[in-house]
């Protein structure tokens, strides 16, 4: 019997493979950012690419986020398909004018006459004691501002497939990858950060959530690390007799509200888990959507687990205290199921 050959990749290798295949397919695709050349990206997103494509298409830039993200916008408006890397999402502060006042608004302000087919890829997330300026996800900060697609894939399979979709999209896409899910040798080794990735080119659509596990008792919505924690939590819940459904958002803008509403209709109970600040964020938005469009499906008040509204603290016990984890999800989901 012939066995199908399965290949496993880490998150970062899945991403760089996606970029490689699109660069081979389309000569207008190029990458620019800090330490993306020989270094291969601080979080490995461009690993090995400079060898194949050289410094003309894998362009190390000076520490000039306004300069090179602005340059990516200008190049995109002239028909290129640039991928710019903002090393840490936290660095958005020095370049938000280019991102929000320009990348996000030019297509609209031009009445759709100027297209900006570009990807802004950026590393997000904490949990490894990098403190307040290098640990945020800022999912909602970007998602709040109209004009950018914002995606945050979890698995290596989706990192590859969604990066390919992002590069092919004619809109600006903010592609957030979670540092801990890149499967890097110098960080936590998580089961979720390595996974089966087909060698061939494939795309995963933007704007579609994925039901990771079906269930009937409670809906758990997560993304990236909170999906990872959710995967562990649903197993434990199952052992405790609670059949939870786990949804991995994958995409924040557009948000796949149908998948969430469909699940809530089935379970009547909703727990949203977010590695971003609690107030005015993804958990609030999803709760509002369910209140507007699915209130009568609810059998218990919605629960939210997110970062209390504080900057990310440095000290390990303090950071672990404020971050969501599997144990907190089990506890909250159990309470919810018993309401």
């Amino acid at each position: 019997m012939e066995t199908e050959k399965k290949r496993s990749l880490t998150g970062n290798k899945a991403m760089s493979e996606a970029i490689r295949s699109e660069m081979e397919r389309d000569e207008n695709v190029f990458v620019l950012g800090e330490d993306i050349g020989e270094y291969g990206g601080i979080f490995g997103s461009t690993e090995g690419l400079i060898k194949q494509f050289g410094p003309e298409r894998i362009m190390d830039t000076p520490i000039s986020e306004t300069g090179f993200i602005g340059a990516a916008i200008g190049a995109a408006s002239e028909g290129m398909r640039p991928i710019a890397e903002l090393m840490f999402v936290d660095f958005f502060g020095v370049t938000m004018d280019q991102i929000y006042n320009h990348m996000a608004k030019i297509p609209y302000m031009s009445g759709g006459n100027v297209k900006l087919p570009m990807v802004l890829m950026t590393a997000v997330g904490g949990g490894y004691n990098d403190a307040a300026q290098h640990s945020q996800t800022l999912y909602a900060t970007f998602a709040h501002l109209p004009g950018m697609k914002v995606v945050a894939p979890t698995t290596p399979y989706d990192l590859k497939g969604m990066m390919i979709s992002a590069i092919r999209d004619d809109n600006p896409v903010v592609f957030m990858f979670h540092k801990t899910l890149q499967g890097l040798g110098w960080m936590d080794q998580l089961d979720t950060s390595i996974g089966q990735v087909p060698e061939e080119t494939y795309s995963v659509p933007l704007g579609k959530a994925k039901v990771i596990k079906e269930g009937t008792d409670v809906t758990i919505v997560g993304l990236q690390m909170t999906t990872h924690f959710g995967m562990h939590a649903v197993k434990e819940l199952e052992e405790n007799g609670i059949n939870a459904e786990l949804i991995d958002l994958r995409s924040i803008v557009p948000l796949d509200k149908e998948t969430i509403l469909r699940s809530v209709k089935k379970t009547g109970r909703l727990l949203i888990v977010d590695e971003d600040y609690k107030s005015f964020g993804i958990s609030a938005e999803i709760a509002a959507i369910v209140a507007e469009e699915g209130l009568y499906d609810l059998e218990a008040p919605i629960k939210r687990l997110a970062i209390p509204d504080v900057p990310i603290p440095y000290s390990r016990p303090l950071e672990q205290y404020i971050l969501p984890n599997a144990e907190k999800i089990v506890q909250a989901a159990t309470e919810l199921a018993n309401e």
Partner: protein
Amino acid sequence: MTISRKELSWMYETMYKSRYYEDEMEKTYTEGKTPVFNIGSGTVPGEMHLSTGQEPAAIGISVHLRKDDIVASPHRPHHHAIAKGVDLKRMTAEIFGKKTGLSKGKGGHMHLFDPAVHFSCSGIVGAGLPQAAGAALAAKKKNKDSVAVAYIGEGAANTGSFHESLNLASLWNLPYIVVVENNSYGISVPKSASTSVASNDLRASAYGDNVKGYYVKDNDPIAMYHASKEAVERARKGEGPSIIEIETYRFLGHFQGDAEGYRPEGEVEELREKDPIPLFRDLLMKDHSFKEDELVSLEEKAKGEVDEAYAFARESDYPDLEEALDNVFI
């Protein structure tokens, strides 16, 4: 270096057109704003930054530009747009907020986009600088010899964006020209209180040997022509970026409605004495054998085109309300 008669003719006609356009806009802007000035009322609402007096900056370089060359313009864009050949009717309709506008009424006077002539705008000071550099990078990658021009005011030369963009442009040896329109004021703050160097062309030396600085004094369109010619040729040949600072005159306030309390008494009158358009007209007659009737016919042609654009804008309808919801994504 001599300037051809055709070029001189184009320069005069385009300067005249730009001036006539702004004069019409100045009048139009007051419609519906008297006796009480309310920025949100009238035929043309919102902020209005007119370029009256600054025409030589745009005309002197645009005479060397082709359709496929890129221009990134700031909040005071009309002279740049006219000189670049932006569709005048659709530009005017855009400023009027009409459905026939360049952006179907979603951009307005500070956000004019005409990709057919590679023209864009931003209302954020200094923001066009890296975008023009990126457009220049695209031209280089596509092996085209087009050049990118970023116009800024002298105030924008003090933004971090200026430094980042010129460093990148030098590093990547881009076909990139920064035109600094020094009109002496960043809104109300005089250049002497904002800028550490006498003129921004001096800053070229901070960015490497391939960056050249030019200074054009007295708002002189001929001097601007020569400086720009060299800068554009250098850029097309891949010899590197340039910074051209032109000493220009802002006859009006920063925006219409600006009380201009910061201006010394008599300053505007003195500047008006040096109005570049009548000076250029005299020069054409005296040194270049242009005849009165020839110049009048250029003027009539320019006026006709502008009048037609304003009529088009007035007659056009406002967009359907649902238009507001379209084009967030392609």
